């Protein structure tokens, strides 16, 4: 869209009226008798007029669709061969087959269960520890230093140890997700608690709130934005941990499907699994956003234009 206010064909049209009153035949606008130089005015266009007519959801889906079309084009012209990357059409067919024979829904069920369990345990551990060290000075002294130390260990590096400890069943997979999820939640909930405005705490005290009342009505609601940020980080890490966990010694789940496909050089199945991961991640993010919309509607923050 063009934002110029004067049509390019007639550069003088917007000040021609002023020209005439000045009776200046040519050149820059002459100063009038009082010595005022005429000011060129430009309209402030109301934002409703500047908005495009295309609805937002359509604009947002255009980008991915264009990408998909490009991909299909490259596959059809043979630039992308099927053993490097299968074409979108073929992937759609394979996805249909995998759904029809029940292997994909079963794998998704297993994976979602693992993430849910890991997320639950991780959330309990992360928030619990954060509450301990956020609310109590003694908790901070005991908990914070070890957690900060453990946090720097890449959790993926613990997989061999976890296999020795928990065997090769569900336990090591859930454990690795739990570990990955705990730290971002811990850090953000802890920072959220410590970031609560001390003026509000004082106001709460002056209103006669008890210690527990202060925690319930002031500290915890104040820490909620931080907790939500932590939850979103955690979800991202949960899917990441799932991919690592499922590619080792798995006999079910999306990761297992991918390992199997790799052995048979089925790039189409691998891409289907990647897409499933992406959609599950998006779905999880959508759920958290919905939570935020309900729980954080009191926040006086910028929401974008």
């Amino acid at each position, binding site marked *: 869209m063009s934002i110029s206010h004067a049509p390019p064909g007639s550069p003088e049209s917007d000040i021609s009226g002023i020209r005439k009153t000045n009776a200046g035949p040519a050149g820059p606008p002459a100063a009038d008798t009082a010595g005022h130089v005429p000011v060129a005015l430009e309209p402030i266009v109301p934002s409703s007029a500047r908005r495009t007519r295309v609805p937002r959801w359509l604009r947002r889906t255009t980008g991915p669709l264009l990408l998909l079309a490009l991909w299909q084009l490259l596959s059809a012209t043979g630039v992308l061969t099927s053993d490097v990357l299968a074409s979108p059409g073929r992937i759609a067919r394979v996805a249909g087959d995998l759904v029809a024979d029940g292997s994909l829904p079963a794998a998704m069920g297993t994976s979602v269960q693992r993430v849910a369990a890991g997320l639950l345990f991780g959330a309990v551990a992360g928030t619990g520890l954060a509450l301990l060290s956020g609310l109590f000075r003694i908790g901070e002294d005991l908990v914070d230093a070890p957690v900060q130390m453990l946090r720097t260990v890449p959790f993926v590096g613990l997989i061999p140890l976890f296999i020795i400890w928990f065997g090769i069943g569900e336990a090591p997979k859930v454990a690795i997700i739990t570990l990955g999820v705990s730290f971002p939640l811990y850090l953000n909930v802890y920072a959220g608690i410590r970031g609560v405005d001390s003026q*509000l705490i004082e*106001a709460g005290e*002056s209103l*006669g709130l008890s210690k527990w009342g202060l925690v319930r009505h002031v500290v915890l*609601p104040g820490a909620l934005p931080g907790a939500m940020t932590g939850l979103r980080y955690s979800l991202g890490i949960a899917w990441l941990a799932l991919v690592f966990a499922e590619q080792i010694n798995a006999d079910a789940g999306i990761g297992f499907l991918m390992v199997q496909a790799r052995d048979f050089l089925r790039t189409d199945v691998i891409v289907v699994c990647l897409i499933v991961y992406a959609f599950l991640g998006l779905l999880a993010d959508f759920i958290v956003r919905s939570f935020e919309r309900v729980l954080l*509607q*009191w926040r*006086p923050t910028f929401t974008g234009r």
Partner: protein
Amino acid sequence: MATDVHGPVSPQATGAPRAAHAVHVESLTRSFDGRAVIDRLRLDVQPGEFVALLGRSGCGKSTLLRILAGLDRDIEGTVLVPRRKAVAFQAPRLMPWKKVWRNVLLGLPGKPERAVADQALEEVGLSHRSGAWPKTLSGGEAQRASLARALVREPDLLLLDEPFGALDALTRIKAQRLVGELWQRRGCAVLLVTHDVEEALLLADRVLVMDEGVIAYETPVELERPRAVTDPRFAELRGRLLERLGVDTAADAA
């Protein structure tokens, strides 16, 4: 009512509670790093009295208010205040995550009904915003909500810490009037900390000037209400107080 129920703020209460006072402070000292901001201060406020506390910034007037509110307990000396007291701060300090009526009820014992909050909001003319989020309130509305939150506690002592400081001039006049009306209706003792001499003279029965950690000067304000800034006695009092506050009023007196 319960003005004789005194809760000591001091670490140890010495002497018997005096029923005749709403506030009784004796030889109160508060030091920050060895420097006494409040130095053996004494202060009595009668039940139902409206007292304004003036002073240059940093003279310790806000510290005194925080001590009376029970928010600062690193003190020496005797401080007796009613158990039922309430504070309104310069910033409204509403919990942004609670709707206005929940803010008003916050900290009340038991499970009070919304009607209790609505009644207090009605009194400050804000009942129509009862279900609103604090972020949607204007500055004056938020300050009135904070006032309702203080009043709903039915305080025997109301502590106001420059509650009109952040309001624009027009809203401030309205808010001052509101506080005057509420005080006359409720009959509670009020301690208003302010740096605005006119505000103090418009509202208070007695004006105190704090300097170097003590009440350096005090004067009763014996003008009948409602008071007018244009009253010559008002101007005379104002000149006297400004002088005590170290502001040259020679040009003003002319």
